[in-house]
């Protein structure tokens, strides 16, 4: 039992979950309507596309890289599907399949640049990101494409069994996939490569494959996010995902995923993601003047980031101190 508590105390995702809880309580006190089912579900739904990107970024970060192109990839998927729904007579499943292929293809391109050609992940996705965005703008220069089928819209906004909105189910699917992958033998490689790439190579792990897979999974996350976004806004918007990319990176860091890789998990990333999307609601319910909202929003984000880093440093300090003590005891 004591062991278990100790283990939870060392869990890198814990600070983010605590932060999220505090923000939830704050919101609940200030704005009792927040936890009303309909309000809360709307909040969950509107956060879902960004959280999908967070899960993708979290995976790429654990393997030691980063992906800042997923937000724009999501935009590309969104506008392509909206465009095809509006101005072609393809069947809806075919269009969704095309969306999926764009997601996987975009992820694969990132993965090949990073894993096979060994381009620095930040640079590689910094380059592919405007490519996806540019394509999206080319397909749809301004928001439009209002031919998204009613079935898709109502499906995304539907709540199953009274407790499970479709969009949240989509998140659940991503989380389950993530867990399955990380519990497989490849999961250990992902963490291993993130921890020490040279060791992973010498240990005979397939470094390139793991990296490509992580980014393909990121592309899949962008597809799921893009599908949900299309249902939510019932149209296409080439700018919808642009700000998700960097927000997702922030969320992942707040969520305790190490910048250098090899540490953290999807739970922390989720908490970090929801933390970011809750901030805005907290600010609105605190009646911050409109023009100060951005300032307040990003200030809190900054605080979250700093807090996450400080907690990490603190943990590191205690760890080294405990280690020192232990080795001194051994010596005596």
């Amino acid at each position, binding site marked *: 039992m004591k062991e278990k508590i100790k283990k939870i105390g060392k869990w890198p995702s814990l600070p983010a979950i605590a932060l999220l809880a505090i923000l939830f309580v704050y919101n609940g006190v200030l704005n009792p309507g927040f936890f009303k089912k309909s309000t809360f579900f709307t909040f969950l739904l509107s956060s879902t596309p960004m959280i999908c990107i967070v899960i993708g970024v979290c995976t790429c970060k654990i393997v030691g890289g980063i992906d800042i192109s997923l937000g724009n990839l999501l935009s590309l998927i969104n506008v392509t599907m909206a465009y095809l729904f509006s101005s072609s007579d393809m069947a809806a499943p075919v269009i969704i399949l095309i969306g999926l292929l764009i997601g996987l293809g975009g992820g694969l391109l990132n993965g090949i640049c990073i894993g096979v050609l060994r381009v620095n992940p930040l640079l590689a996705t910094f380059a592919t990101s405007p490519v996806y965005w540019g394509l999206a703008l080319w397909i749809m220069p301004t928001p439009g494409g209002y031919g998204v089928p009613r079935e898709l819209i109502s499906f995304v906004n539907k709540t199953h069994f009274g407790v499970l909105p479709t969009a949240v189910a989509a998140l659940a699917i991503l989380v389950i996939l993530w867990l399955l992958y990380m519990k497989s033998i490849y999961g*250990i490689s992902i963490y291993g490569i993130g921890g020490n790439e040279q060791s992973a190579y010498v240990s005979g792990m397939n470094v390139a494959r793991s990296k490509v897979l992580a980014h393909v999974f990121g592309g899949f996350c962008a597809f799921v996010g893009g599908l949900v976004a299309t249902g939510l806004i019932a149209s296409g918007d080439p700018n919808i995902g642009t700000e998700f990319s960097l927000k997702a990176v922030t969320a992942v860091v707040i969520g305790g995923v190490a910048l250098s890789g090899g540490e953290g998990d999807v739970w922390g990333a989720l908490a970090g993601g929801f933390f970011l999307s809750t901030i805005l609601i907290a600010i609105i319910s605190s009646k911050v003047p409109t023009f100060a909202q951005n300032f307040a929003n990003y200030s809190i984000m900054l605080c979250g980031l700093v807090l996450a880093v400080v907690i990490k440093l603190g943990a590191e300090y205690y760890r080294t101190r405990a280690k020192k003590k232990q080795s001194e005891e051994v010596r005596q």
Partner: protein
Amino acid sequence: MSLRCESISKHYGSVIALEDASIEVERGEIRALLGGNGSGKSTLAKVIGGIITKNSGKVELDGTEVHFESPLEAKRQGVVVASQELSLFHNLTVEENICACSLPRKFGAALDRRKMRRMALEVLDKLELREMIDVPMRDLPANQKYMVEFAKTLVQKPKVLILDEITSPLYKEDVQIVKHVMYELRDEGCIILFISHWMHELFDICDSVTVMKNGVTLSTYRINETNEYQLLSQMTGISEEELERRNHVLKQGVEEAGKEHDGRTVLLDVQGMKLKAFDTEVSFTVREGDFVGLAGLQGHGQSDLIRQLYGLSGHTAYAFKGKPFECASAQKAVKSDMAFLSGGRTGEGIYPDRSIAENVKSVGNLVVKKPIKKATEVLNAYGVKYNGLPNLKITSLSGGNQQKVVVARWLATDPKLLLADDPTKGIDVQARYDLHRSFIDLANRGSGVVMVFSDDEELVELCRMTPNSRVIIMYEGRISKVLTGDDITVENIIAYSFN
């Protein structure tokens, strides 16, 4: 199973790491590879294990030639390397680390946690380390990491096992455990290549030994048909009788040498200072104008000593310039007229994004407040070839010239004590010669110079050129021998390095 290597060579640019290595090992044999620093043992190990690719030569397993392009391919054939550089993951647990190369699966790709635990426990039991199975690797003390590295190879059921100096940091009891496991493997027919600097370990554990020197395999002996002096003689080229005689001299005491100092004042006085990395004590003095070289096998505390003196390992106390001196940071050391040169040029030397002039001014202008007015004068004085363009980025210069800029930066501030950790690493001959001149000039001007060199020949050459030179040889974090005058020879350094 038999392993045969024929005329293997490996070059890194113009540096020859391995020139002509050939060995033949039969099943059930433990073969030691013995040689000084840079003799090519580790390179040979890495070539066999597929970690690096060879330039020429043949590796044969059971008579068929193999070409390993990656460690993975080598592992598939049962060739496994455990190396001093470790292949561990600090963010995983001991259990996951041990099984990382051979993860058991079920239902296709799912990880079989239960089997993994069984596998890990099986080897940990052998190594008597059962209780540390769930510890994260980063919480493990350094010496136990080497046990885990060893455990990791065992899980892979090796047919050819290469142990590259993993026993050096182990406690004696642990070495005995490793030895017994090695014997078990041998009895199962495994080939083991064992690299160690510890002579007594070789005689204790191995069946046969191959001596290497300068990337060439010289000769192979059955262990019971040879002795320490014969092996050392092979490595150094000194006759066995001479080695034996010198060994007696060594036993007569360490601090006898270095007595002549013709009244020069003591600059650095280290008495019983605790060497943190080894938990040993060292004592020595450096007088004005002294040139002291630190030698020994790599990793016996030379670099640690230099770095500790410079305040890079936290709080240290010794006497400097006749006063007790407490050094807690590099900044304090620099402000007290010390200088530090590192062979890690990009990491600890240059500012790669700044200009040549800025680099040469950095210490004088920013730290010790002895501003350098004209960078070009200093650059010319130290023979930096910069084509009259001091405002170019320093990275536009060759490695040797970059290091000259770093040296100029320090020496222009007139330090009383120069500490250097392998300052000429990876530098061409001409630049090396120019740097040597700078070091000698500094000593002649009355400053103290303490340096580590990984190249023994270079050290000897430098010592010959300075009047008050000494070589301190370190072994396991202790000063094992001090050489002066005509005793400073490459052969002596190697001989005493092995204690």
